């Protein structure tokens, strides 16, 4: 702790000086021993497994979509360290206010792949994440979710609950006014929210350089009087440490934190996107060297604790995921009522009338056959 009650990493890695928190390098070597989080071997291996699971699920999703069995999907490839590190620090009582690219964290909160598949298959029942406690649906209107998170933070504080709110946005999203307003309110209200910017270098085709002239994204915290930190988002240990520190800070009642996780979207923006239009293969390859899975695996191997039959595990995961997908795919029931049912807690006459009209049409159609 420093003078201002700020955890040391926020001082040592002051974003104004454009420093970045790192624990291991691309080869999996520890470069900051004193920062290495205290995790037992099993936990570290579990983390790897979770990252692997996310990666496989993600690949699977992309391939289902290519097969025409699912609509537009937003890949997570390359950003798994962030998601799993967050997932390991988010508790059941904590809140997750997602953007649309943090599958691993959703899974950690209890969202099922089946539900996710159902959602990307075009059914709102998947998107409701009904099995997961304290998880909001995916926010598509970029920036708005940060404000929801701040509001939940107020509510947590008001009701004196021991809950932390985790929320995510992309690098592009930092340009939206809602982003700034949310952080500003969070600063004034001192709410227990961990805000993450997943800086994956692109907003669809627009590189982060064209997005803002600030030295980095974590530094935007300065404008709102909350601590910020830039972290190597492909370094699982750095992300783990950042989230552990940030969530403890938030829980202690000292307020919100902004985490910039520097990463790279190795895949396409969505399954309708073609990244070759706007970026070079060399760039992708360069970033490929920082792949969070490879790095963590190298670390584990170098520690001599690797005990996974990765091929077998991969097969297992694929099968599990396939099962969930088939489950979702078979669930194609979408009754007419679902269109009207959830708009209001008690359906207004206007909606009843509109539904009845449609049913009349259906029976006319039936008769005509």
């Amino acid at each position: 702790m420093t003078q201002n009650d700020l955890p040391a990493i926020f001082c040592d890695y002051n974003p104004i000086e454009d420093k970045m928190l790192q624990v291991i390098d691309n080869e999996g070597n520890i470069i900051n021993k004193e920062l290495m989080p205290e995790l037992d071997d099993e936990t570290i291996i579990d983390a790897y497994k979770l990252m692997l699971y996310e990666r496989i699920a993600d690949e699977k999703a992309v391939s289902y979509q290519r097969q025409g069995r699912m609509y537009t999907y937003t890949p997570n490839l390359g950003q798994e360290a962030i998601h799993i590190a967050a997932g390991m620090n988010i508790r059941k009582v904590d809140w997750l206010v997602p953007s649309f690219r943090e599958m691993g964290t959703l899974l950690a909160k209890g969202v099922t792949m089946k539900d996710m598949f159902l959602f990307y298959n075009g059914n709102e029942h998947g998107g409701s994440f009904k099995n997961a406690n304290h998880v909001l649906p995916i926010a598509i209107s970029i920036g708005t979710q940060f404000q929801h998170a701040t509001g939940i933070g107020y509510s947590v504080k008001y009701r004196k609950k021991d809950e932390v709110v985790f929320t995510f946005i992309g690098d592009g999203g930092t340009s939206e006014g809602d982003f700034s307003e949310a952080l500003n309110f969070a600063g004034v209200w001192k709410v227990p929210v961990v805000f993450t910017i997943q800086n994956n270098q692109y907003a669809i085709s627009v590189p982060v350089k064209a997005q803002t002239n600030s030295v980095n994204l974590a530094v935007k915290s300065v404008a709102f009087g909350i601590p910020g930190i830039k972290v190597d988002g492909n370094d699982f240990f750095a992300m783990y440490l950042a989230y552990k520190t940030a969530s403890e800070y938030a829980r202690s009642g000292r307020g919100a934190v902004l985490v910039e996780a520097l990463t790279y979207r190795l895949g396409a923006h969505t399954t309708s996107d073609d990244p070759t239009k706007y970026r070079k293969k060399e760039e992708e390859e360069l970033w490929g060297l920082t792949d969070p899975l490879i790095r963590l695996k190298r670390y584990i191997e170098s520690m001599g604790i690797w005990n996974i039959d990765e091929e077998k595990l991969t097969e297992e995961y694929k099968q599990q995921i396939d099962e969930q997908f088939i489950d979702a795919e078979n669930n194609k029931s979408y009754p007419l009522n679902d269109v009207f049912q959830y708009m209001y807690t008690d359906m207004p006459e206007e909606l009843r009338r509109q539904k009845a009209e449609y049913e009349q049409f259906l029976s006319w159609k039936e008769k005509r056959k």
Partner: protein
Amino acid sequence: MVKAINNALDIKLNEDKNIVIYGEDVGVEGGVFRVTEGLQKKYGVERVFDSPLAESAIVGTALGMAVSGLRPIVELQFEGFTFPAFNQILSNVARMQNRSRGKYGVPMVIRFPYGGGVNALEHHSDSPEALFAHIPGLKVVIPSTPHDAKGMMIAAIESNDPVIFMEPKRIYRAIKQEVSDEKFTLPLGKARVVQEGSDVTVVAFGAMIRECQKAIVMAEENGISVELIDLRSIYPIDRETIRDSVRKTGRMIVVAEAHESFSVGSELIAIANEEAFLYLEAPPKRVMGYDTVVPLAQGEKYYIISPDRIFYEIEKSVHF
């Protein structure tokens, strides 16, 4: 009306710890129209407080509160400053319940003064009810008397759906009416037949009710019997009351301050057609604002709907 709304807020704050009120200047100052006066003192700064100046975040954070157990009531300072929050309202407030398939309700009230006739600067005289009413997932209501304001506000706060509560600022302090101190509610979604009549139906709401009443006096002097309906709820709209009245009178005039195109007037005419086509004896008519910006004070006289203008249209309809 200011007092009646204040009283409604007071009653609910007292009753339900989960209610919080915030917005620009609602705390220490008690709101620029004093609607929240005294509430911060009584309930503390954690429950009634000033927010930073950002409408989107006021609404966006309220949504976060609403899905996590609170029942926020937010004030937007004027109707013209609701639009920075339009995206949050349309994209999230109105949709979260549907998006989450009922997992997350959104019990919140967004209240703001609206309407013209107060010699104001730009953005302080508009009537944007149609914009909100076209958004599925919202309830949009407008009281025309202190009594209604109180009963509707309590109902709005108790509603588990998000409610846009529009307050006709022109009559904030203009209508004196004794309102019971007790708690009572009025069902949202129900219009009120202000006065029965047989020749023509006049549908209005908010500050226009009073103007219609003045016009009706003129009509009565001319032997015309007018049925006046206070719509009260813009969405859901009370088809039944409109239908019954228009079937009875065969004529309808809609009086409202908003721009006439794509308005509540358009919708009411559509409803009259759908529900009472065979009964119509004259074309339903909109007496509404132009498709122009509401003029500043010197020009507002042309824009504002006067009782004689309403009477003129009543007469035209009856003599069609």
